[in-house]
């Protein structure tokens, strides 16, 4: 590995770490504003929704197996199954779809 590549990696790592670390270090006190509290409460659900759809349809290489995997995930999640059950069932459903259809 050359020094140049090492420097690239250091820049990547430092910038990525600062982005993660600074907000956590700066906001040490509980936020009082109701708007900000509500905003932060909704952030994870917004991020997950935006990241899942439509990206999930391209996650397995074909839309059909991904759609079936997603449908299985929705159904199991709706009935309160755990993370790992939902994740593996979605993968299995997608895999079986690819094998048999």
């Amino acid at each position: 590995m050359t020094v140049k590549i090492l420097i690239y990696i250091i820049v990547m790592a430092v910038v990525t770490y600062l982005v993660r670390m600074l907000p956590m270090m700066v906001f040490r006190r509980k936020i009082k504003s109701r708007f900000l509290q509500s905003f932060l409460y909704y952030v994870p659900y917004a991020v997950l929704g935006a990241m899942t759809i439509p990206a999930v349809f391209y996650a397995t290489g074909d839309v059909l197996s991904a759609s079936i995997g997603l449908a299985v995930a929705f159904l199991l999640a709706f009935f309160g199954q755990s993370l790992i059950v939902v994740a593996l069932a979605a993968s299995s459903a997608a895999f079986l779809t690819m094998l048999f259809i």
Partner: protein
Amino acid sequence: MSQSSRREFFGGFKDSIPIALGYLSVSFGFGIMAVSNGLSVFAAVLISMTNLTSAGQVAGLTVIASGGGLIEMAVAQLVINLRYSLMSLSLSQKLDGKFTWLSRLAISFGITDEIFAVASGRSKEVSKQYMAGLISLPWVGWALGTLLGAAAGEILPEKLKLALGIAIYGMFVAIFVPAARKAVGVLIVVIVAVAASCCIRYIPIFSGISEGFSIIICTVLAAVIGAVFFPVKQEGGSDE
């Protein structure tokens, strides 16, 4: 470690298994990509061990392969990973009272989309032992997957590898669907975020928006709408 600390650690460890499995397969692809772009196996693994992020690493690889400048590298990482700031800010509100500045420095390294999702999906505050448990295995999975991908090429059958690509999304679904079922505010926020994300993806005038920026825009838009129309009850009982 006291018994409750250990229970917290293994609780996080158990919750991280699906993340680690997902990371193993995703980083496998990154490993292959890094080596095919001329990096050594060691460099590929070093990137994964120090960055722990998929989109940022792929972008970084592109900059390295094209001989881009260091400023370009820094800006690319900043833009693509900016969403972690939102997550970090959100997570900072969910930590229990026992976090020292050192433990904050340590766990902030491990904020990823998936780790954040699981931590914030917990109904109660999170402890540092829980976070340590939650971060350890995915970090190992991410580095190990990169190593396997870079060193050995394609180990898994193609179809199995592709099918594992959906595992992470299954986890996301398992977090937001039950929450949306319980609270109409969450349901609306998810619908707005999904609609915005589809618009940016499919409407041609938005095609210049990068994936990282798209996530930021959708998140801010949907969470602001949620906060305005469905404000959550004040925690701690202090009115402004």
